[in-house]
């Protein structure tokens, strides 16, 4: 591989379009901090729009605008001596150096405005060291591509030749010349299926939290007392009306949540394209904001795929490929497919763990005492908490909570039966869950730390949890005999310590 020339030897500024985005960020920040006050100004009952207070807000906005323009002209980046350097700041000069071989991922995103100016926002992540992240508001697409290519080339060169696996070598030849192979294109019907099978209850929770937070803020700002009014209303209504209202509002609420998740996930995953590149995978998706995420094969620590009941009905699964990254970015930009079919999953598995198919696996389960724990945590404990908590408004009807116990017991037994783990010479595969089922595929050499944990109770019965930590999170095998946990621990440590491949 011949060395590409340094695309940014001299300090350069971002695209001038960046001013707009910096400005946008400043205003967003201002509005987020002051929106309650702005609301007060707008709905001021005394109509004193031009009070000193309004002027203060305007002055702040103007100050922000001026600052963002100055910031733009003082923001430079360049590559020198194998380091990506960013200089910024007016009064307090800040210089951030990121060694190129520390860069984990270079991700792009493109909103509507970005598309209009033909620029992209770049987010660069380095492993571990927080506060060293590096981002550019807007640079032209060509420059961004040049930056990414250069960074990835440097990384390839810095990896010793012997650690390059044969598999990646052949695949590189096959896809020579940056010809990415399209593995999956999300059709409209797939998009709909994904939207339908999302977790709607979570959205319901978020909406609820939002409205309660919102109501609090509005109450404070406008000096209203909404909850008192609601109470008054409920007080005047008949007891039957309240229950009727509740029964009516729950389906309505769920329907709203369903619609919101559907729309949100459709926008986010619109026209999703999943590519196999010569270095790993690339995913481009989104209607208004086109987001481009790439996963470097070497950086992928493990693969996790999960199904909900609806997804199983559609034969679909969601796939995640956690990469070595700092915690902040790891949460935000974990690369994955919200829904795909068996062939795509197989492609991902084969790329991450080429030998998986040829290696014999040994199947193991977990101890049946886990039923007791699950039943206590999911059955008895919630019932014990809910019964006294709801006594004040349910009265003797709290006994209905006891009806939860039989299904909880069934779920706990199912949980025990479904927990399977498969060990081969090179890796681990787990499968668990009842309603939502999750599988994990891990190669031993990706593991960074092995932990065996026992509570006092587990210790008495000779059981333990086995925790395998990687640079992108941990995998936990619960309730296994201590003998097995120790055997896996010794074996995995042996594998890590004798393996000289780069694991991230």
């Amino acid at each position, binding site marked *: 591989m011949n060395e590409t020339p340094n695309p940014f030897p001299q300090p350069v500024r971002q695209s001038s379009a960046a001013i707009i985005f910096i400005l946008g960020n400043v205003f967003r920040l201002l509005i987020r901090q002051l929106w309650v006050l702005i609301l007060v100004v707008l709905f001021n009952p005394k109509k004193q729009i031009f009070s000193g207070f309004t002027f203060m807000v305007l002055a702040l906005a103007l100050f922000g605008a001026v600052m963002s323009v100055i910031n733009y002209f003082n923001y430079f980046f360049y590559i020198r001596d194998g380091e990506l350097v960013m200089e910024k700041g007016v009064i307090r000069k800040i210089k951030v150096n990121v060694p190129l071989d520390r860069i984990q991922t270079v991700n792009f995103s493109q909103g509507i405005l970005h598309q209009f100016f033909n620029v992209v926002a770049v987010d660069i992540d380095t492993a571990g060291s927080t506060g060293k992240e590096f981002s550019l508001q807007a640079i032209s697409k060509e420059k961004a591509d040049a930056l990414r290519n250069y960074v990835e080339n440097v990384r390839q060169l810095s990896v010793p030749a012997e650690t390059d696996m044969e598999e990646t070598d052949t695949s590189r030849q096959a896809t020579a010349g940056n010809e990415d192979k399209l593995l999956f294109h999300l059709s409209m019907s797939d998009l709909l299926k994904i939207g339908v099978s999302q977790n709607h209850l979570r959205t319901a929770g978020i909406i609820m939290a939002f409205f309660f937070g919102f109501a609090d803020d509005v109450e404070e700002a406008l000096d209203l007392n909404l909850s008192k009014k609601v109470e008054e209303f409920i007080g005047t209504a008949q007891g039957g009306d309240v229950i009727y209202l509740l029964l009516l509002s729950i389906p309505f609420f769920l329907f709203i949540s369903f619609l919101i998740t559907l729309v949100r996930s459709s926008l986010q995953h619109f026209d999703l394209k999943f590519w196999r590149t010569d270095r790993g995978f690339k995913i481009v998706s989104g209607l208004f904001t086109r987001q481009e995420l790439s996963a470097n094969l070497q950086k992928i620590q493990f693969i996790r795929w999960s199904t909900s009941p609806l997804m199983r009905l559609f034969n679909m699964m969601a796939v995640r490929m956690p990469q070595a990254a700092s915690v902040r970015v790891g949460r935000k930009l974990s690369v994955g497919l919200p829904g795909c079919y068996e062939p795509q999953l197989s492609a991902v598995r084969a790329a991450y763990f080429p030998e998986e198919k040829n290696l014999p696996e040994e199947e193991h389960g977990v101890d049946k005492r886990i039923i007791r724990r699950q039943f206590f945590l999911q059955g008895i404990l919630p019932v014990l908490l809910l019964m006294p908590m709801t006594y004040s408004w349910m009265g003797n009807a709290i006994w209905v909570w006891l009806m939860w116990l039989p299904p909880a017991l069934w779920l706990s037994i199912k949980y025990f039966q479904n927990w399977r783990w498969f060990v081969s010479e090179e890796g681990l595969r787990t499968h668990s869950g009842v309603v939502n089922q999750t599988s994990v595929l891990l190669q031993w050499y990706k593991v960074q730390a092995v932990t065996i944990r026992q*509570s006092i109770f587990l210790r008495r019965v000779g059981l333990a949890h086995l925790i395998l930590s990687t640079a992108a999170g941990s995998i936990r095998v619960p309730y296994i005999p201590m003998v097995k946990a120790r055997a896996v621990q010794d074996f995995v440590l042996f594998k890590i310590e004798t393996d000289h491949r780069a694991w991230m």
Partner: protein
Amino acid sequence: MIFENSSVPVSSLPHAESVEFQRLAPAYRTVEMLGSTLLFGFLYFGWLLFYLLNGLNVEWPVWVILAVLTILFSFSLFFSWKRWTVAGYALREFDVIHKHGVLFHTVTTIPFNRMQHCEISRGPVESTFGLATLRVFTAGGSSSDLSIEGLPVEEAQRIKEFITRKISENKEQ
């Protein structure tokens, strides 16, 4: 039984559990018990203040709180005492093993070739008793980091140098 397919029989592998663990400094026990005494001293003081401010004529819940506080304090003292007994560490040729925890007994092993760096930190109480905490960092957040509390300062320094050398040896390879 386990890993029959393996080309390396498990029984021939070095066992992480059978190594001899190094004990922590005995002063660690003092520090831990002092810490829990200080914490509960504050709580007792708060209780006393409440009792005095209420003019000594208070209802029975106050005594229940005192009883609960005392039970918790004795538990806390017991655990602080026990913590030293169960904790330990071992340096092997390729990894560091750390065991700790009374309620949740935990044994963590990190190979040198997966470590990023290590450092020593000392709180004010630790310094007074000549103790230090050794932290070992791996890549990607905190899920797999290690911190060995209650080491004598010189020992912590020595281990740190040893580990740092091992890490740089591995990076050169």
